[in-house]
């Protein structure tokens, strides 16, 4: 069985780089990086990853809208939110939109690995 394929979404190159390093050094395959919600939806269609990490505060299309759009394309999509935004109404909205988990930055690398394992990685 091959490594789980992951799409990383964050508007900062720094965050994309750090997530990539953590995931790749733990046996996951990062198949793509998206820099905003619109990019994430397009790349989801193109790459059909197993798991998506999703930021919320991004230009062009925010993460919650992107979650909704991806869930329309694939109701089985497994999306984990990674965002500094941790206010309850937003967390609830993201989970209602279809996200499987919500990690609030800053978080230790271990946290994101645990979340991915939990969601089926």
């Amino acid at each position, binding site marked *: 069985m091959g490594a789980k394929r992951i799409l990383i979404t964050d508007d900062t190159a*720094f965050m994309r780089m750090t997530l990539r390093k953590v995931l790749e050094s733990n046996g996951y395959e990062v198949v793509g990086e998206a820099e905003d919600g619109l990019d994430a939806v397009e790349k989801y269609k193109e790459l059909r990853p197993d798991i998506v990490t999703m930021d919320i505060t991004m230009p062009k299309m925010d993460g919650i809208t992107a979650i909704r759009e991806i869930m329309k394309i694939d109701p089985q999509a497994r999306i984990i939110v990674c965002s500094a935004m941790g206010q309850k109404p937003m967390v609830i909205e993201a989970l209602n939109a279809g996200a499987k988990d919500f990690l609030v930055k800053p978080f230790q690398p271990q946290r994101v690995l645990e979340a991915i394992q939990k969601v089926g990685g």
Partner: protein
Amino acid sequence: MGNIGAGNATTALSQLLGDRLVRMTAPAVAILDIPEVGAWVGEPHLPVVAAYVQVTGGIEGHAVLLLAEASAQAILQEMLGAWGGDRPGLLASGAIPLGERTVSDLEASALMELGNVVITSYLNALGELTGLVAIPSVPSVAADMLEAVLNSILAEVGWSDAGVLAIRTHLQGEGAAVEGQLLFVPAEGHLSRLIQAMGMVGEARS
């Protein structure tokens, strides 16, 4: 109000610094005319690194993280090292103009992420305290003299004949390795909303 927000922000900053201790002072609040804001914050020629977001939603306003240049360097080095990255000569070279230097895309984005995390942590606490949602914009960053940085942000705040309310908290790390301020300026007319919301949340809990 500023106290709790800053407590959250210092926890976030502390984690970004590998759990080193970051203290905050009690917040200072003032109502200032636009031309007075700069002098109230600090010495006009001080080189600072700044991250700025506009806040919308239930709470509206402007939030700024200001760091002494050396502090910004220290934090960014920690960030770039902590997750297994290299530690490049920070703010040293690249194609993106930022103040006196040009920086790489990675360094600029690390700075934006720093601003995003610390300011959003502050807003998260404000949101919890008031029961209102505070949504940050994507951050903007700058590195220049304090007065010029603040004046550029004030142009986004706009003019107010009644002055602006400013809430300021100092952040101080171990051995003064980190030195910064968090500034929050609620949008005109929003202070009373904030206070009302806090009052209502207080009543609901009692």
